[in-house]
C-alpha cells in the first residue's frame, strides 16, 4: 500500500485470519502456566479429602503425618476457616443471596472429595505420602445422592436449607396455561434427564500464593479466567486492601467457565499463605479435578408444548430441576433462571412459562460451564422432534412454520427476553442447504431399506452474549505509545485459549492506525492492567473491542494533534494517519512517523504549545449500551447408529452461526469447533457419575471419556453476519457451540432410531443406553411403531 492511499476497510486487521501472537511461545514449550511458576523456598500443598459422601467428622489425627520428614504443617478447618473475613464474588455482588462455602470441611463432609485437611510439605511427593497418614474418623450419615429426589428426602445436605432447596424461581403460574393446553389439538411433552458433565480443561486448577508479612502484600499466580475477581476475592477474604493483592496469570490451559471463580481450595491457599513463612503451591491432579472441581449440566425438566392443527406452537412450558451439588459456586439460581427464560428459543410462541428449582446433593458442587443454560436447547429442540413425529410432520417443516423471521424482529419472547439482530431462520436454511437435507432423506430411505439406520438432527438456538451485569457491564483498556513509537495495550485479560492477545492487537492496530507488528498486549496482571471482569459470558470480544476502540480513539486524537503541529501547524482534520505514518492530505511527500511523534511527545515537551498534551498514553473505560448481545446458530448433525452394538458414528456435522462480523475468523471458528466437540462429548460420552452411595465412579480419563480425534467428525461451517448493537457490531461466540451440539446429536440419534419407536429421555447416549432403548422399544411393540413411523415418513415425503 502506498503512503498516498487512504486506508480502507480492506486494510483493516479485523476480519482477517491474523496468525496468533500466543503461538510461538506455546508451541516451543515456553508458555507460563501456573505449574511453571517457581518461587524461592516454595512449599507444596496437598489436600486430604473425604472418601465418603456424607459423614460427621469425629476426629482428625495429624500426628503421624506431621512427623513425616519434609512435612511442614498439617492444617484443618480450625486453622483455616476462622480467618475467612468476607467471602463473596464480584460476579454476584456483596448482597446476592449465597450458598455455604467453607474452605475446609468443618464438622461434616458433604461429598466425596470434600477437602478436610491441608498438608504443607517440601514437595508434592511428600505431601501425598503425608495425606495417607492423616487419620480422619468419620461417622457416616445417609447421603442425599440423587438431586431429583432431594426435595423429598428427610436427610439434609445443609441444615439451613429445608427440603434441600437452594432456591426456586419461575414465571407466571403453570395453571394459567391450562386452558391453552386443554384445548390444543396436539400436546407434546417429555421429561429429559441430562447427566452431570463438566468443563474439564486440560490444565487442572492450580494456585501459588506468596504472602509478604512485612508489608502485608499477597502475590498470587493462578489458573483463572478473571485475575481481578481473584484479587478482589482475596482482599475481602483476608480483609486486606485490594491494592495489597496482585494476581498474575500468563497462560491458562482452558477455562470454559470452570475457572471463572476462586473455589474452596483457593481460599485455603490464600489463608494458609499468611500463616507459613514460605510461598505455597497447589496443583490439582486429574483425580481431584474429577472429585472436587465441580460439575455442571446435571438437571432434568418436563418440557411441554401445545400445537394447533397446522403445527403452530400455541404455548411452551418447562418445569426444571437442577443439581447444585453440595457447594455450588456461584449460587446456581442466578444463571439457572436462564434455562426457563430462553426455553422458547428462536420460535414464535405466544404463551409460555417456566419453573426452576435447585437442589443440594452430596456430590461435587455445581460450577459455571460454557452456556450454563444449555438445557433450554436440549429440552426444546428434542421436544420439537418428538412433536414432529407425533403430529406426523417433518421436523424441518415444523421448525420453518414456527421459527422467527427477520421481519418479526426485534421482539420479546413469551418470557420477556428481548431479541434483536438475530437470524435463526437464515442459519437454519443455510445449514440445511450445506447438508442437502432432501438428499439426506432420500439416502436415509435407501439405507433403512438396506437395514442401516442413519438420522439427522438439528438445533437452532439464540444466545445472550456479553451480558452487561454489574461486573461485566464495563471494560477498560490502557494504550501507551512508547517513546520509540511501539505500542503496548493493556487489558485485564483472562484468556484461556481465547486468543485475546491476538484479537486485542488487531483491534488496537486498526483503531490507532498503526502496523500490527508494532503492537503488543499485556494482560493478566492486576498490578499493571486496568480493572476488568475477565473472560466469561462470551464477553471478551465485544467488551474488549469497546474498551480498545474508546481508548484508541482518544489516543489517536492526541497523535493527530501532535502530527498536525509537526507537519507545520496544519489543521488537525487535514492530517492523515495510516500504518504509523502521518501526512497532510493531498501532499504525501511530507511525512512524520509515529516514532517521531512519540519522541516529541516524551522528550521535546519544551517545544510543544501548552495546549498539546505530552506523552502518549490513554486509559479508557467502555460502558455497555446494551443489556446483552444476541447471537444465534443452527447445528445440523447426521449419524449412523449400529443397532446391535448401540454405537453412534457421526457422519456430517454442520454449524451455521451468526456472531456478527468476525475479528479473526480463525479464532471464531476455533471457538465454534471446540464448543461443538464439548457438546458432542456431552451427548455421547462424558458423564461424571456416582453410585448409589455417592461414590464417584469416573475418577480418571479411563472412565470420564472425552472425545478424541478418532470420534470427532469434520465440522463444516457457514456464517451469517448480522451486526449487533454492541461495539463494532460484534457478538460473543465462546459458548454457543457447547449449547447447540447436544440437541443436534440427540435428535440425529432419535431420528435414526425412529423406525423402532425409541424415545430418548436420558443422557448421555452411550452404546449401553442405546441398546437398552432399543430393547425397551421392542418390548413396547416395535412393529406397530415402525409401521406408524414409516407411514408418517411416507406422508411427509409425498
Amino acid at each position, binding site marked *: 500500500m502506498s503512503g498516498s492511499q487512504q486506508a480502507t476497510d480492506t486494510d483493516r486487521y479485523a476480519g482477517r485470519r491474523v496468525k496468533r501472537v500466543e503461538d510461538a511461545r506455546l508451541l516451543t514449550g515456553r508458555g507460563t502456566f501456573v505449574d511453571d511458576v517457581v518461587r524461592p523456598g516454595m512449599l507444596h500443598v496437598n489436600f486430604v479429602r473425604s472418601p465418603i459422601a456424607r459423614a460427621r467428622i469425629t476426629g482428625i489425627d495429624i500426628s503421624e503425618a506431621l512427623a513425616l520428614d519434609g512435612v511442614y504443617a498439617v492444617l484443618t478447618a480450625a486453622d483455616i476457616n476462622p480467618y475467612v473475613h468476607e467471602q463473596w464474588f464480584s460476579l454476584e455482588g456483596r448482597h446476592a443471596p449465597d450458598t455455604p462455602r467453607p474452605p475446609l470441611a468443618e464438622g461434616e463432609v458433604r461429598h466425596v472429595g470434600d477437602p478436610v485437611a491441608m498438608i504443607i510439605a517440601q514437595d508434592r511427593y511428600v505431601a501425598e505420602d503425608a495425606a495417607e497418614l492423616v487419620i480422619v474418623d468419620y461417622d457416616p450419615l445417609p447421603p442425599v445422592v440423587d438431586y431429583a429426589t432431594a426435595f423429598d428426602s428427610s436427610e439434609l445436605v445443609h441444615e439451613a436449607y429445608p427440603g434441600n432447596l437452594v432456591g426456586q424461581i419461575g414465571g407466571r403460574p403453570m395453571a394459567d396455561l391450562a386452558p391453552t393446553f386443554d384445548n390444543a389439538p396436539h400436546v407434546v411433552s417429555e421429561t429429559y434427564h441430562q447427566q452431570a458433565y463438566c468443563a474439564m480443561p486440560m*490444565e487442572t486448577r492450580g494456585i501459588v500464593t506468596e504472602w509478604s508479612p512485612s508489608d502485608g502484600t499477597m502475590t498470587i499466580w493462578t489458573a483463572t479466567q478473571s485475575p481481578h475477581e481473584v484479587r478482589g476475592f482475596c482482599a475481602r477474604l483476608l480483609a486486606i486492601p485490594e491494592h495489597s493483592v496482585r494476581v498474575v496469570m500468563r497462560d491458562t490451559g482452558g477455562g470454559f467457565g470452570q475457572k471463572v471463580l476462586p473455589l474452596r481450595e483457593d481460599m485455603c491457599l490464600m489463608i494458609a499463605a499468611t500463616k507459613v513463612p514460605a510461598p505455597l503451591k497447589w496443583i490439582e491432579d486429574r483425580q481431584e479435578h474429577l472429585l472436587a472441581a465441580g460439575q455442571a449440566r446435571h438437571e432434568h425438566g418436563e418440557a411441554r408444548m401445545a400445537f394447533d392443527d397446522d403445527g403452530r406452537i400455541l404455548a411452551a412450558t418447562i418445569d426444571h430441576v437442577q443439581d447444585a451439588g453440595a457447594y455450588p459456586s456461584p449460587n446456581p439460581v442466578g444463571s439457572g433462571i436462564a434455562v426457563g427464560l430462553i426455553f422458547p428459543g428462536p420460535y414464535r410462541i405466544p404463551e409460555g412459562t417456566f419453573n426452576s428449582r435447585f437442589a443440594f446433593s452430596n456430590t461435587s458442587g455445581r460450577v459455571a460451564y460454557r452456556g450454563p443454560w444449555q438445557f433450554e436447547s436440549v429440552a426444546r429442540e428434542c421436544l420439537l422432534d418428538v412433536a414432529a413425529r407425533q403430529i406426523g410432520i417433518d421436523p424441518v417443516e415444523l421448525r420453518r412454520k414456527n421459527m422467527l423471521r427477520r421481519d418479526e424482529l426485534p421482539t420479546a419472547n413469551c418470557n420477556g427476553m428481548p431479541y434483536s439482530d438475530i437470524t435463526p431462520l437464515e442459519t437454519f436454511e443455510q445449514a440445511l442447504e450445506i447438508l442437502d437435507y432432501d438428499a439426506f432423506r432420500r439416502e436415509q430411505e435407501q439405507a433403512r431399506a438396506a437395514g442401516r439406520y442413519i438420522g439427522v438432527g438439528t438445533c437452532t438456538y439464540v444466545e445472550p452474549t456479553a451480558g452487561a451485569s454489574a461486573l461485566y457491564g464495563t471494560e477498560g483498556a490502557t494504550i501507551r505509545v512508547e517513546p520509540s513509537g511501539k505500542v503496548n495495550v493493556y487489558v485485564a485479560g483472562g484468556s484461556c485459549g481465547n486468543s485475546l492477545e491476538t484479537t486485542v492487537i488487531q483491534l488496537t492496530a486498526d483503531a490507532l492506525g498503526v502496523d500490527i507488528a508494532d503492537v503488543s498486549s499485556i494482560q493478566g496482571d492486576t498490578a499493571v492492567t486496568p480493572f476488568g471482569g475477565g473472560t466469561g459470558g462470551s464477553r471478551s470480544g465485544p467488551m474488549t473491542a469497546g474498551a480498545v476502540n474508546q481508548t484508541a480513539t482518544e489516543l489517536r486524537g492526541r497523535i493527530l494533534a501532535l502530527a498536525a503541529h509537526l507537519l507545520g501547524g496544519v489543521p488537525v482534520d487535514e492530517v492523515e494517519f495510516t500504518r504509523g505514518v502521518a501526512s497532510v492530505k493531498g501532499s504525501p511527500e511530507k511525512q512524520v512517523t509515529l516514532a517521531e511523534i512519540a519522541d516529541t511527545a516524551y522528550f521535546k515537551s519544551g517545544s510543544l504549545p501548552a495546549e498539546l498534551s505530552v506523552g502518549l498514553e490513554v486509559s479508557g473505560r467502555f460502558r455497555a449500551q446494551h443489556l446483552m448481545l444476541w447471537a444465534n446458530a443452527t447445528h445440523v448433525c447426521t449419524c449412523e447408529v449400529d443397532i446391535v452394538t448401540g454405537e453412534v458414528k457421526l457422519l456430517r456435522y454442520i454449524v451455521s452461526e451468526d456472531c456478527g462480523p468476525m475479528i479473526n475468523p480463525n479464532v471464531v471458528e476455533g471457538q465454534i469447533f471446540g464448543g461443538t466437540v464439548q457438546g458432542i462429548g456431552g451427548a455421547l460420552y462424558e458423564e461424571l457419575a456416582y453410585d448409589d452411595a455417592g461414590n464417584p465412579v469416573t475418577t480418571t480419563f479411563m472412565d470420564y471419556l472425552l472425545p478424541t480425534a478418532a470420534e470427532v467428525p469434520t465440522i463444516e461451517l457457514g456464517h451469517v453476519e448480522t451486526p449487533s448493537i454492541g461495539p463494532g457490531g460484534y457478538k460473543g461466540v465462546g459458548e454457543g457451540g457447547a449449547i447447540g451440539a447436544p440437541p443436534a446429536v440427540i435428535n440425529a440419534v432419535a431420528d435414526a432410531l425412529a423406525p423402532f419407536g425409541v424415545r430418548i429421555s436420558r443422557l448421555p447416549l452411550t452404546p449401553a443406553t442405546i441398546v437398552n432403548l432399543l430393547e425397551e422399544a421392542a418390548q413396547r411393540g416395535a412393529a406397530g411403531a415402525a409401521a406408524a413411523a414409516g407411514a408418517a415418513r411416507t406422508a411427509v415425503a409425498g
Partner: protein
Amino acid sequence: MTDVDIQVRVNGIARRASVPPRLILADFLRVNCGLTGTHLGCEHGVCGACSVLLDGEAVRACLIFAVQADGAEITTVEGLAEPDGELSVVQAAFRDHHGLQCGFCTPGFVVSVTAFLEENPKPTDDEIRDALSGNLCRCTGYQGIINAVRAAAEALAESGGSASRDATAKETE
C-alpha cells in the same frame, strides 16, 4: 529409598542427577531440568500432554520413572525448534492451521506428531485421526490439529525433510 544416579541427554545437553527412584520423568524434566514445556494433564497415561521423545520414540513422561531413562537421549518440546527459534515443520503447521488455543495439550501433540510423521510420512486421514487419538485436547475440537498434521506431512514430503531435527542428525551421522 536411596537416590539413584542417572545420566541422560536432554535436547542435546548432558545432564547428571541423583534422583529418587519414584521420581517420574515428567517431574525430572519439569523440576530438575526446568523444562516446563512438558505438561501433566492426567498423570495416568491417557491425555498425552506429557509426551516426550525417548531415543526418538514418543513416550508418556508421566508413566516412566526418571531412572528408567538413564542413558537415554530425550527430546522435549523445547528441543524441536531450530536453535535460532525457527519453528519445526510440525510446530509451524500447528501455528498456520490454528492447531492450538490454550496451548496446554500442544507440547504433547507436537511431540507425538513429530514421532508419528517420522514413522509414517504419508498418512491417510484415518491414520492421522488414529494416531492423534492418544492425545486429548479440550479447546480445538481437533479440527485445526488434523489439518496441521496433514499440512506438515505435505510440507515434509515436498521438502524431503524429516519431522525431527535429531532424526535428521542421526541419519547424517
